[in-house]
């Protein structure tokens, strides 16, 4: 089921809208690449598809500097504590994209090793279908994420629940 934004949430004030506009054009991704979907991620990151148009051109290879966790590929049970730890290291506001069938639902693997969807470990904002997703799918998902960021209630650091953590 595709999520849709029906109308602007009534409680989004001017500050939320300004912050949302700023945040949606400065997406810093943390690519957590474990499997073959990584190839497609790399092709998306090249100049040909130019995701710099969406302000997402600079992947940060440290979770502490990133806004969006991109889980690219298959996640094993052995690796799942690592993913959770990386998610917890990221500073709010943060979002998560599940890239490909494996990350979303376990993909072709229904066996002893593979986590059946990373939403058992971290909350996911965007699921990208496909094995692997085409670059167009990725760009579509990125634009959906931008919509989502623009129209959400913004997290403010002085009101954050995890402020002291």
């Amino acid at each position: 089921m595709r999520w849709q934004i029906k109308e602007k949430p009534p409680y989004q004030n001017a500050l939320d809208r300004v912050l949302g506009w700023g945040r949606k054009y400065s997406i810093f991704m943390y690519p957590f690449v474990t499997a073959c979907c990584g190839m497609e991620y790399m092709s998306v990151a090249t100049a040909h598809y130019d995701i710099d148009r969406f302000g997402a051109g600079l992947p940060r290879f440290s979770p502490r500097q990133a806004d969006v966790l991109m889980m690219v590929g298959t996640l094993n049970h052995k690796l799942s504590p690592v993913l959770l730890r990386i998610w917890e290291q990221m500073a709010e506001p943060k979002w998560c994209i599940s890239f490909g069938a494996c990350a979303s639902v376990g993909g072709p693997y229904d066996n002893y090793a593979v986590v059946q969807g990373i939403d058992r470990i971290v909350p996911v904002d965007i699921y990208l279908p496909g094995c692997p997703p085409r670059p167009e799918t990725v760009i579509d998902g990125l634009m959906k994420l931008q919509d989502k960021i623009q129209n959400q209630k913004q997290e403010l650091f002085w009101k954050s629940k995890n402020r002291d953590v």
Partner: protein
Amino acid sequence: MTSEELINHIIERFPEAGLECLVDKGQAAANVPVEQLEEFLKVMKDTPEFGFDLFMDITAVDWLERKPRFDVVYHLYSTEHNHRLRIKVGVKEDQQVPSSALLWMVANPMEREVWDMYGIKFTGHPNLKRILLYEEFKGFPLRKDYPYNKQQPLLEDTWPVRDSQERMDERGIHRP
């Protein structure tokens, strides 16, 4: 050496032993009883005419209803003579196999993998513990009686799907 010559050499070297040597699918193959395995591998490695210096692979097969239940399969290669040998060892469920980790260093991680996946113990192995799976894992996943999709998660479902729905509500995103 061709496969036939290799087989003839092995039969000459072990005339009275309970080996079964043949050329199977174009490759020399030997069925060796577990009791003789240690000596057999030693000879294969140290005798110059065999000279198997490369330990290519060790794996196992679970036949479930057959007795003995497992086959442990070795693949050896000689870089000097350019010949290969496949060794099969029938192993009962509670039987232990002599380790070859002291003959070929590379057998060490491979035997740990066989232990990890099939639960076959190797006597004399210096560090026999799980290599691919985690220590908390119960059972051996490549055995035929392990349910194919039984999972043993390391983490509780910390953020179930319900939770991301809550986050969506918090942010004012509505599903149609």
